């Protein structure tokens, strides 16, 4: 009796430890800690005060992601301020429920096809259901005068793409 109890407890433990370990690791695969910078090309490819959709293969994915690793961001070049290039880089995802917003240069607005959310050119919320403006990506201009951004994960309201960004804006 005691022996069979001990034996089954031992069996359960040796099966459970690797099993639970695998599940926990697979279920909560950690977002990579190190930051991946993606090169979006030379600064002078971005005309001033215009918004461009830039696409790249997201390094945060798996090798077997195929075209789903393609990622788009909207880049707006604001020109130079005190000799520094100024950019705004927005994730394509609507802050309402993540649908891909589209840029309309004629009216200078981003519009969302899902529930009709609208944003201004500077990313601020203009109208419709979204609770805040578009998500901003971290960007920098490297020494070769090329625009780089931090590879964006899927942004959500509580985990935006910028640590210092207020949750509501």
């Amino acid at each position, binding site marked *: 009796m005691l022996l069979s109890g001990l034996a089954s407890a031992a069996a359960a433990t040796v099966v459970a430890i690797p099993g639970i370990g695998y599940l926990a690791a*697979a*279920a*909560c*695969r950690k*977002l*990579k800690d190190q930051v991946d910078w993606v090169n979006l090309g030379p600064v002078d490819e971005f005309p001033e005060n215009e918004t461009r*959709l830039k*696409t790249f293969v*997201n390094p*945060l*994915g*798996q090798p*077997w*992601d*195929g*075209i*789903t*690793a*393609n*990622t*788009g961001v909207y880049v707006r070049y604001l020109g130079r301020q005190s000799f520094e290039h100024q950019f705004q880089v927005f994730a*394509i*995802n609507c802050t*309402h*429920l*993540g*649908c*891909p917003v*589209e840029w*309309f240069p*004629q*009216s*200078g*607005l981003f*519009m*969302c*096809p*899902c*529930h*009709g959310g*609208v944003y*201004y*050119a500077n990313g601020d*919320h*203009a*109208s*419709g*259901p*979204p*609770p805040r403006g578009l998500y901003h990506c971290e960007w920098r201009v490297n020494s070769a005068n090329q625009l780089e951004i931090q590879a964006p*994960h*899927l942004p*959500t*309201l*509580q*985990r935006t793409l910028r640590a210092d960004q207020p949750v509501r804006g």
Partner: protein
Amino acid sequence: MFKRIYDWIDFRLGIRETFMPMLRHPVPREIAGPLGWWYVFGSASLTLFLIQILTGIGLALTYVPSADQAYESLLYLNYQQPWGWFLRSLHYWSSSAMVVLVLVHMTQVFLHGSYKYPRELTWLVGVLLLLCTLGMAFTGQVLRWDPDAYWGVGVGASMAGRVPEAGPTIVDLLLGGAIIGGDTLSRFFALHVFVIPGALMFFLAIHLWLILKRGISAPPKAGARVDPATYDSEYERDTHEHGVPFNAEPILKDIIFSALVVIAVVGIAAVAGPKGPSAPPDPTLPGANPRPDWPFLWLFALLALSPPSAETVIMLILPVALILALLAVPLISNRGERAPSRRPVAVLLVIFIYTTLGALTHLGHTAPWSPVMTAWSSDPIPTELIASKERTLSPLQLQGAVVFQNKQCRNCHSLDSIGGKRGPDLTHVGQRMTTDQLIDQVSNGTPGGGNMPAYGKQISPAEMTALVDFLTQLVPLGAAPARTPTQDVP
């Protein structure tokens, strides 16, 4: 010869001994009559589930659950694999029919009060079966790895991401990685093929066991109240004295109805063909216009129409509340009248729920708040508004019409009911608003980030003049334009 083989096996397995009493168990006599047709929806759902298992296994032989190959394998199924298109089609249409029949079955049980004593647990497990069915519908939609699937996961993750505190963790669990990709598809495959079907079969076994144990309820009679103290002995007596064996008349109805359903579903599948995949799941493809499959359109509409302040409640609390309400049904009322004629509240509730769901589904289907992304600017301004016998526009007004088209106004506003419905129809706006009011509305939008964006910065003064000049003359023929009370009448 066959008989001998059968007897040999049966003696060892005890099939007859075990299953014959189940098949022969007595059911209320009315079920042998025309009223028995009320009882066929559950077994038909089960039949469709069997089709889902078989077609699902078939599809899994070809489908590749990998983000870079899934779409291609679906195209292969559609166009190259013999009968692949039909299998996909049948799997889709049969799943739709299964959702419908599960709902019909549930509605019938609710209206007839069959969930009351002693069948409360059967209902509770039934609610879990409904959730499994919807879970299969959602995860199945994701396996159709096209833009709808891709953005559907995005919407699900964005909703989950709003859960206080736990949000980001739930998003990780759903996606399996930082972005929607291979990890995401793998886990939805595991859910769709192993986890949820396993749970479904488990609950199904309990559901059927409970039906055998507690018997099938008799059709409700007005005035015959359920009283737990006396119900069992009465039911026992009725079925044993007057009941009919299940495997006589009643089972025939089940078989006939299931057969009709199968024939209908196969017919629809053959004519309508498989659903999608609509396009490769490239998240950077412009013009994506994601829509969920029909069982979720009502939620999609609700999310578009609800005010932002109520939204978190609708996303996070409403689903939980709905499920709890369904689970609570037999716990709140497990006795008393069963006949719908004596339960007006129950009947009204059903009418209310289906009207709401139907209206929302229709709205979600037409999605009038956002016309197809490429449509609105290319829909020309209706000719009568530009040139007719009674109306000739000045060059400035014509320019205004062009501004109106170019600035995507038609995404939200319709002219002659063509265009978006998020903002008001502007066919007669000149009758409602003066020049000043229009300039104010267009440049400042709805104050406080309401329904209309402020166009002040996206429109030049010249464009504004032209636009407003065009809008103010939009009045019904012969009607006077709007004016403010203080304005001098010329």
